[in-house]
């Protein structure tokens, strides 16, 4: 127990890094995922094909492999650098590339399935009463699609928080790798340290789950 109290600043620092990884890659994958979803539902076969290829490749590759590719392949071999002197900043951004590339494939699928849950009749009815394309999208389709997407996006974000630990594969000192280091430093306090870190993840994910669950229930579309 003392070990956890003594190392509290270190532990909080590790979780701060976890939060930064989650927020930055979450925002990037939301934007990029929506772009991909737009490509996959567009009327142009080229864009649909490119989107489908991206999603199927990224979704079926292990995240660890993607992050290793970013860290060693892009970072070491291709010499992609974000900072000349700060190595940890470099691997931080490289792991964000990997996390965003992976998560955006799932965001794309969630958004696309959200659009697909809106029945065709809704759009036909909207056109029948004379709404333009943009009005149909803005007033009829998106309000229904966004609501069905909230709960799955919530569980994606939840999964992303846990997935940031994979950045440990290229030496980013987030929660999991820091926990391993503390195990090495305090061999007699392994269980309290583990429970402390586990509690940290519960604290990060629980409010998010409750919020997205409640929002999804409140906004559910009755069909």
């Amino acid at each position, binding site marked *: 127990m003392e070990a956890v109290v003594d190392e509290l600043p270190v532990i909080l620092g590790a979780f701060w890094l976890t939060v930064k990884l989650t927020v930055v890659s979450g925002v990037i994958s939301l934007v990029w995922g929506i772009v991909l979803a737009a490509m996959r*539902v567009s*009327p*142009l*076969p*080229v*864009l649909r094909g*490119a989107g489908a290829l991206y999603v*199927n*490749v990224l*979704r*079926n*590759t*292990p*995240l*660890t*492999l993607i992050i*290793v*590719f970013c860290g*060693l392949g892009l970072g070491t*071999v*291709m*010499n992609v650098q974000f900072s000349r002197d700060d190595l940890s900043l470099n691997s931080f951004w490289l792991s964000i590339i990997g996390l965003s590339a992976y998560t955006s494939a*799932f965001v794309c*699928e*969630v958004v696309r399935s959200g*659009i*697909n849950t*809106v*029945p*065709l009749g809704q*759009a*036909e009815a909207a056109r029948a009463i004379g709404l333009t*394309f943009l009005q149909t999208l803005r007033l009829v*389709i998106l309000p229904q699609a966004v609501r069905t997407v909230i*709960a*799955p996006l919530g*569980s*994606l974000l*939840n*999964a992303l928080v*846990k*997935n940031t*630990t*994979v950045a*440990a*594969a290229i030496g980013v000192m987030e*929660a*999991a790798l820091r*926990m*391993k280091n503390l195990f090495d430093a305090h*061999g007699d306090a*392994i*269980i309290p340290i*583990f429970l402390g*870190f*586990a509690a940290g*993840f*519960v604290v990060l*994910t*629980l409010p998010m789950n409750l919020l997205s669950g409640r929002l999804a229930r409140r906004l559910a579309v009755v069909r």
Partner: protein
Amino acid sequence: MTERGATVLYDVPGPRARLRNNALTLAFGVVLLLVAYFVWTKFDEKGQWDGKLWQPFLRADTWTELILPGLLNTLAAAAVAAVLALLFGAVFGIARLSDHRWVRIPAAVVVEAFRAVPVLMLIFFAQYGGSLAGLVVTEFAAVVFGLTVYNGSVLAEIVRAGILAVPRGQAEAGSAIGLRKNQVMRLILLPQAVTAMMPAIVSQLVVLLKDTALGFVVAYADLLNAGARVVPANYANLIPSVIVIAAVYIAINLALGYLATWLERRSRRSRKVAADPAAAEAAAGGEVALMR
């Protein structure tokens, strides 16, 4: 009557829209080609398309000596963890539905706790916690432990949701003809629930297979280890090697994915299934089908 090719977003294109679509197809096609060309030249500048980096993958011994042993280790860890996780999931899923509070609540706590903790942390904990208890924990055992308890907890939710998705009348009818509680579960609920759960279970097993790659972090000699450490150590070809290994993973996962789709279609066709597969999957948190 809805026309073919119509979606909720746009009508079937008429002559003018077709012309515009063709022009846009050409424009975006050029843009995509430019992006591909840019990536190609960047890798080319570093000599990543050199024949000598790719040559090793045309030789049989690279595969038999370096890659296949890794693939076998990946499949072994996945198979053992899958069996254990299914057992874990069945036990805790059913325990969460128990009539006895002293069974139900601890089971719920275990499932919810393990679902919240990242697999990598569980793997580290198995290594250090095991040696604290005086056990010799191999990398294999640590990876299997982490994959089992995490995926087992997710499977427990799938099992619970699958059983709950069987209409109540089934269990009531079973009790009415005098079956005991365990007979109702064993003879009536589980057989119907399992068919409904099948697609969700297979998707979760794909997640499990992909997560075996976490063994790389603790130096378990799996497929990713072969592709990112062993082969590059011999031929200094990290990027080609990781690309080839990714193709192997994608092929395996796509095959399992098709199996899941096929099972889903089959169970949807079958009239014997009373429970709705989609309900089983959605009730398990939706993460099942998503983060695979």
